[in-house]
């Protein structure tokens, strides 16, 4: 781990000097620093900024402080009642210990677990731009089937982010240039030619909160995660879903996929295909197929198409 100077942040808009980075729960950043993948010169601790409350928004919905720990958020009665998909996604992730440490913003900003990215001695366009992407020809069983590029086939590892993408959550950002908001669905980028950039955040911008808008039918929502062992593993594929079904017809739906792309993948195409359709397995599969038509699997990850397709049908059947 490279040496760094440590200080605590005193203001959300103070920004960062070059080479500095924010530190919150540390579960991903400290890990990457030990691996030599992250090499900040300055760590600015944001855990004492008081961003650790979950509040009601006027008009409904929640404002989740960026520093709220994952376990506290998963246990929040409002989250469990109004957005069970979010609580379930959080509880599907990591371990009890890690959830006690990891924060809302840190979870969103965690980096891919692509095995090449995590090894500083490997080529990787994300940690060493221009060095190449060995995953394309190498180990990619658990990498992207949607939205990847020749430069990068990494997936975003978060469970929580998939639920937030489905819930139309919005990220509140502060920085020296002021405040702005970005929908969670637009926070993470697709890799393109610059996979070293995970998100649209500018250097020094700090996520201060995540707003989750009111969505009545999210009270009937679910997160389903598939992984290679029963717990304490990153997803091989996951879905977050909320559905409003009236008289056997899907009147509204939210759907997002995890572990399939460089970002939590909001399934807008599938949602559009479902609205107004009968709540049947056939409709669900047709909608899934519409979304997955864009999939470009690699040698060893085509199984994710069938997996996500089955999950869409199974989870929506469960919500109907």
């Amino acid at each position, binding site marked *: *781990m490279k*040496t*760094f*100077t*440590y200080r605590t942040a005193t203001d959300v808009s103070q920004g960062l000097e070059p080479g500095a980075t924010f*530190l919150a729960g*540390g*579960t991903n950043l*400290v*890990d990457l*620093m*030990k*691996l030599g993948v992250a090499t900040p010169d300055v*760590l600015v*601790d944001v*855990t004492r900024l008081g961003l650790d409350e979950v509040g009601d928004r006027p008009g409904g919905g929640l404002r989740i402080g960026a520093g709220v720990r994952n*376990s506290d958020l*998963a*246990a929040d009665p409002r989250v*469990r009642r109004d957005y069970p998909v979010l*609580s*379930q996604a959080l*509880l*599907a992730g*990591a*371990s*009890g*210990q*890690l959830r*006690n*440490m990891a924060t809302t913003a840190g979870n969103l900003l965690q980096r891919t677990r692509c095995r090449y990215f995590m090894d500083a001695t490997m080529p990787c366009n994300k940690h060493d731009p221009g060095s190449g992407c060995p995953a394309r020809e190498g180990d990619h069983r658990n990498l992207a089937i949607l939205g990847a590029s020749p430069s990068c086939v990494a997936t975003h590892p978060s469970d929580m982010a998939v639920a937030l993408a489905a819930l139309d959550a919005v990220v509140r950002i502060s920085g020296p240039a002021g405040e702005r908001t970005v929908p969670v669905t637009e926070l993470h980028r697709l890799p393109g030619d610059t996979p070293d950039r995970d998100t649209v955040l500018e250097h020094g911008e700090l996520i201060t909160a995540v707003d989750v808008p009111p969505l009545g039918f999210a009270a009937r929502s679910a997160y389903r995660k598939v992984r290679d062992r*029963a*717990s*304490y593993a990153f997803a091989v594929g996951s879905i977050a879903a909320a559905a409003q079904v009236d008289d056997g017809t899907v009147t509204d739906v939210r759907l997002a996929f995890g572990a399939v792309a460089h970002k939590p993948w909001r399934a807008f195409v599938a949602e559009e295909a479902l609205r107004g359709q009968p709540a049947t397995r056939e409709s669900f599969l047709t909608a899934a197929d519409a979304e997955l038509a864009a999939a470009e699997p690699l040698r060893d990850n085509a199984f994710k198409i069938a997996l996500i397709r089955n999950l869409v049908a199974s989870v929506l059947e469960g919500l109907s």
Partner: protein
Amino acid sequence: MDLVVNGVEHSLDLDPRTTLLDALREHLGLTGAKKGCDHGQCGACTVLLNGRRVNSCLILAVTLDGTEVTTIEGVDHPVQEKFLEHDGFQCGYCTPGQICSAVGMLDEVAKGWPSAVSTGEDHLSDADIKERMSGNLCRCGAYPNMVPAIREAAGR
């Protein structure tokens, strides 16, 4: 910096890179917390921070100024006796982490926190114990013996 461990205040002059785990093991001689992976992937380093279970390998000690740390050396809980009774370990290397984790986990259950397999308000089932304890790996495979130990320690 000042670190309060098991109720004792320590004044330490640490490299900012020092993790809580290394501060405990290499600077304070408290080797009960174990280094199994050093990356939050095994749970052997679990300690309690203000009563909450955490992976001490991923916490920079410098961030903790004033926080109460409880390590296995400061734990006195029925789960320890139950581990002995049920042979809840073999090599013993994951054991301090399992015990600290169980102590923290039972507190989470008492607070009504949900898990991936329960709402937190229902009976603490074996499946629930296993899910909640899954952040602590045991390569010896002593899991089937830990579950009744934890269940009984919880008074169930």
